[in-house]
């Protein structure tokens, strides 16, 4: 990538957020904005134009799902079609399928490795805008989900009820 990419990172765990920041700063030509929950991200999206969103799923105040719904339902075409990478610690098929339906561009599972993070971010940034989610990309996201489910060897688990009360 020649151009400096503007990336929004949404992660409520300070240490993980710092790790992502350090890795991306040193390996991707980018400018980073860090938010600590979905609501902060929404506020920031109203002011700044981004090229990519990398977001955690389980967060207080507003979850990753709520953030994605906001983005995919946005009036501005630029926001609506933003590449959205979901960071998730929960290898839960339901939430992955749900996220895929909502138009997630790609997934990164915690604990991730550095190479994988860099590759997936670069990949998402090199995608033409019209392939990165939105209404017309159902086929694309489903395909991503299917390969992902296979390679990550996702196990089906019951959702943690305590967490659901927050999200």
């Amino acid at each position: 990538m020649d151009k400096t990419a503007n990336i929004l990172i949404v992660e409520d765990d300070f240490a993980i957020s710092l790790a992502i920041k350090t890795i991306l700063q040193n390996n991707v030509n980018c400018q980073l904005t860090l938010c600590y929950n979905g609501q902060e991200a929404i506020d920031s999206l109203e002011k700044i134009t981004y090229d990519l969103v990398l977001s955690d799923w389980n967060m207080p105040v507003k979850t990753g799902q709520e953030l994605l719904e906001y983005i995919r339902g946005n009036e501005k075409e630029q926001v609506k079609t933003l590449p959205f990478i979901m960071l998730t610690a929960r290898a839960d098929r339901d939430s992955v399928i749900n996220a895929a339906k909502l138009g997630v561009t790609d997934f990164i599972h915690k604990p991730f490795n550095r190479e994988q993070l860099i590759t997936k971010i670069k990949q998402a940034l090199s995608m033409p805008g019209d392939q990165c989610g939105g209404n017309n990309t159902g086929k694309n996201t489903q395909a991503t989900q299917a390969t992902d489910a296979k390679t990550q060897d996702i196990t089906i688990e019951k959702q943690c009820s305590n967490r659901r009360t927050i999200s």
Partner: protein
Amino acid sequence: MLQKTDKKSLPVENSFNDMRLLIIDDEPFNVEILGEILVDAGYQHITSDTDPRNALALCEIHRPDLILLDLQMPYIDGFEIIKRLKANTELCNIPTVVITAQTSKEYRLRALNLGAKDFITKPFDPSEILTRIQNLLETQKLHNNLENQNQELQRVNDTMSELVSIVSHELRTPLTSIKSFVEILRDENDNLDEENKRQFLQIIDNETDRLSRLISDLLDLQKMNSGKIAWNTELVDLIKVSHDTMEFFRPAFHDKGLSLMLNAEMKIGHVMIDADKIRQVLTNVLSNALKFTTAGGVTITVKHNNAWANVLLLSSDEVVSSQITEILTGVSVNTIHHTDRDTILEHLECSGGNTDLLIVDISHRDAENLVLLEQLRITYPALPITVIVSDDETAERKKYSVQKSTFIKKPINIEKSRAAIELQITDLIGLSSQTTMIEISIADTGSGIPIKDLNKVFDRFHQVDTSHTREQSGTGLGLTISNEIIDHYYGRIWVESEIDKGSVFKIILPELRKEKKKLGEILVEKGLVTVEQLSNALKYQT
């Protein structure tokens, strides 16, 4: 309604006498005879009603093991009741015995086809009735046992799945940081200065601690839930423990520029508790207070408090409310009085676990509160309720739930009612009303907790927004474990809070006093201390 429970029963061998029977017959005479027969046979839990319209509601509330049902009744007949029972997934397994006349063979067949299990014929033949009932109860007992075992297995299974899910999620978070920073230190070494490296190593260290705390907390909780934890109960001076814990935290508070104080009442006695575990509770609460307070500080107070029970009163009658207030002053509790149902419901929903007793007036103008009462019995089956009624007859008719309800008649007799309410409150923690309580409160000037989350803070992995505090994250299990510990020693822990003003965590524990033997006896009885330990402990008490 007829309650045969108090009647002296004959010493009959009956292995089913703990099972619940419900009689629905519009003819009071039939109810009377059947009741006599059953009571004489040793059955102890018999409920009846002559109004068939109450049948389903009574089934919902009492969950009988068997129903004796008349077929020909006004408003709604026995056939219809059977149909409705069969259509209800929770009630469809209650066996029904229909009551018919000798001649009505057609009726019997129709009832049996609809799902009735057996029939008895009028005029009643006691030995035949008892045999038929016993046959059905035998099957029902097996059914109940299986259902209980099934529920227990389901519970174990749910706990296991939850644990797996928790382990996969909660343990991965610190693991992610550790892995990432190790990779950064290995692969990005050229881009990092000394300061970065030190910070990253510190994070790895912190996150490793967090991971190991998570594992030990999870194991602790698991042990507590399965009753496998060792409790080293001893005589503990709460002021000393509070002081020691405070001193442990002092440097951290000092670093954040926060004050930390201890106020203790004179002549506070000791409690019988596991010293390490009460220290663990105080540490959990104090580390939360430290985390969520940015200005001001924390005050720990140790004092006597016997007014720990929270009572909700619903009545529009001013005389009633002033009398209840008078009664409760004697019992010393916190009372919240409201005149409208919606406010009470809202209050219960927000702080369900914090309400210890609900007093509801259903007399005269407040007659409609009865609807609320029935609803609450189903929503909060364990909530103790005192019902204020206008006369004996109403009390009898409206005794919708035998357990956990007490009735007070109008005009209110202060002394009698006080005794009744006192009994309900002391029943809550299983100690006598003579027990004195010691309260430790930890008040911070932090951000406060929204009302809707007040009960949830004791839930496992309740998520709070800690991102901006930049503090090390907790395990999300500390308060859950604290709750288990305090509960084990007949205490209570709860939190009161106001947004932007701060939160107060309160812990009450029963005080051990020489002249009050009851507590000691209970502790020995429950195997928490040995007789020897207790008498040694009491020697040092003044």
